[in-house]
């Protein structure tokens, strides 16, 4: 209901912008400025997922200065109304549109087919079109590293993980994290609590509290707010952030480290390719080598030898000498899912629906 009204206002607003533009600079240098549309699933003030996308957008704006003009659309629902938002952005003169959430993809593809002269960039999906790319990052690599740190700092060997939805992205993250945990402490466990929401401060906090009550002394998360981390540090326990540098936001050294996104590193070259006229449709899954992902500064509470071990692992991944899902992997029933010497394919990673050994919980 609320979204409906908000959307209506947005539609009105965008059409006003479009209308105003049309009458104002008919013959002026409008084509010298590249108009970029950006669609966010939540308000960037969530301090999480959309926040980091907005940081990328800001970096891109600063990089190109007057050459680009960004129109932001926040809190857009993932339904057919997103198509209208995209249409409105095109009416307003946008030549390229970014959308940052999984379920926009079908709507974006529909719009892309109708507007072959506009470029579309979809984050976290798999659909494409000659004028539509999808892009994402290998966040699981950072999850693994943060798991190593969590295992080293956990006294009880019980680590909690607050997860949003049982999508492959979240499951893959939990698995990578757990593999990192087990690399340091083979007896440690990772207990998963599903909240069934990306964004709900009180449910996320409740999930973390339930884990802390069960004796978990490090809380990791795949959620959009800082509440799970806050709940942990308030009890004097440790937390692993996600998306942004939670150590800074929460203001506590007990936030050990945060796996972070760096969307600017994708947006800047993409916009450059549009300006150069070299844009091509692609399926992009960036990793360490493009610095799409990185770790926040590690808390001073983490021993120096551990920091070194993490850096060494990171270098191995960077040089492609080793990766998270290489070698023998058992699931949490003990069955061997991947034999030693094998490497998991991107496709298998993108559709993973089982937990590795060490995870307490079930995907379904």
């Amino acid at each position, binding site marked *: *209901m*609320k979204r409906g*009204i*908000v959307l209506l206002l947005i539609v009105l607003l965008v059409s006003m912008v479009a209308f105003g533009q049309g009458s104002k600079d008919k013959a002026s240098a409008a084509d010298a400025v590249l108009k970029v549309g950006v669609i966010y699933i939540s*308000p*960037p*003030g*969530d*301090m999480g997922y959309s*926040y980091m996308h907005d940081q990328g957008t800001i970096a891109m704006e600063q990089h190109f200065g007057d050459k680009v003009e960004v129109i932001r659309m926040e*809190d857009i629902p993932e339904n057919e109304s997103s198509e209208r938002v995209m249409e409105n952005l095109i009416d307003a003169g946008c030549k390229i549109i970014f959308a940052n959430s999984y379920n926009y993809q079908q709507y974006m593809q529909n719009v892309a087919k109708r507007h072959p002269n506009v470029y579309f960039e979809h984050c976290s999906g798999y659909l494409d079109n000659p004028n539509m790319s999808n892009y994402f990052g290998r966040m699981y690599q950072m999850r693994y590293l943060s798991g190593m740190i969590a295992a080293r700092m956990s006294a009880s060997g019980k680590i*909690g993980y607050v997860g949003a939805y049982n999508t492959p992205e979240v499951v893959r993250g939990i698995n990578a994290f757990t593999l990192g945990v087990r690399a340091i402490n083979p007896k440690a466990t990772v*207990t*998963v*609590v*599903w*909240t*069934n*929401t990306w*964004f*709900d*401060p*009180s*449910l996320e*906090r*409740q*999930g973390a*509290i*339930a*884990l802390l*009550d*069960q*004796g*978990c002394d490090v809380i990791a998360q795949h959620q959009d*707010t*800082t*509440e799970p981390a*806050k709940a942990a540090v308030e009890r004097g326990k440790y937390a692993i952030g996600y998306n942004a540098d939670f150590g800074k*936001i*929460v*203001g506590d050294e007990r936030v050990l480290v945060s796996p972070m996104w760096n969307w600017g590193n994708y947006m800047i070259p993409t916009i450059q390719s549009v300006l150069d006229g070299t844009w091509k449709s692609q399926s992009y899954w960036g990793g360490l080598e493009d610095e799409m992902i990185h770790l926040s500064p590690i808390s001073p509470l983490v021993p120096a030898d551990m920091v070194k071990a993490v850096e060494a692992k990171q270098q191995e991944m960077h040089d492609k000498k080793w990766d998270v899902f290489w070698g023998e992997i058992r699931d949490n029933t003990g069955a061997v899912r991947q034999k030693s010497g094998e490497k998991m394919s991107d496709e298998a990673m993108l559709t993973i629906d089982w937990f590795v050994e060490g995870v*307490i*919980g*079930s995907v*379904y």
Partner: protein
Amino acid sequence: MNAIDFSTRLLAATLAMGTSLTYATLGEVYTEKSGVLNLGMEGTMLLGALAGFATAFKTGNLLFALIMAMGVGGALSLIHAFLCVTMRANQVVSGLAITMFGSGLANFLGQRLGPASNRYNLTGMNLSSKFSNIAIPYLADIPIVGALFDVSILTYGLYLLVPFAWFFLYKTRHGMVIRAVGENPRTAAAMGISVSRVRYLYTLIGGMFAGLGGACLSLSFIPSWNDGMTGGKGWIVIALVIFSAWNPARVVIGTLVFGGITSLQFSIQAAGFKLMVPAQFLGFSPYLITLLVLTAMTIIAKKRKGAFASPAALATAFAIDDK
């Protein structure tokens, strides 16, 4: 972990979560008892949460923050009272508008009331102090029920306010006046009661309670501000009022069931128990229970006249010159 510890912590989590719900539900019971349906709870709670947080952030004074939350919640509900009582507008439409207006205004102000140095303003800011749990010596050490004596001052407040609400509504003359206005405003008016005044007053009080409920979240449970942080609690409140059959005493059962199931689904997962039912099922089961309770109440009410009935004049406008 043994069963007693598990239950104690489950109760503690339920109380922490249920406090905000109970305040708002009590408020809505007062309002509906006088015959006014206020569907604006979600927006009112959100605006209350914002007002409380912004005040505490700027002044550091938690008591003042509570007063502001109540004031803002009350002010918003006065708009509803004006539309429904004075203008005799449709209460459902007005309530929905209040929710949308309140949520939107909270979002708008949340991006303006914080320090300009933070790009996202109030979001991501921390409070210097919050309402923490206060343990009562000895009592808090009792297994399970001890959780009742290790809560924040806001929860302790409910231990007084809930019995008071029941006593006030059912055992005092003024409570009877409220119920009369909600059941049969014509008769109440004939007895010389100002229906409008009563409805204004209890819509105001309901809004103040809702604002307080929101502030429980932003000043105690989640000491921070996030757009949409109530996450639909204002709608649960509406279900809870029905669940408790407009009786403040039963509100407690309702919030314990609603808060308890939410906490239980997390505790079960965190304890590593295999769930017999998927977590998603537990997530919506409180609403399923509401439907079942509503059905049961309707059946019982048919056999025993007057039992569990909603206020007869709920959501209807009244004017003295109506025929």
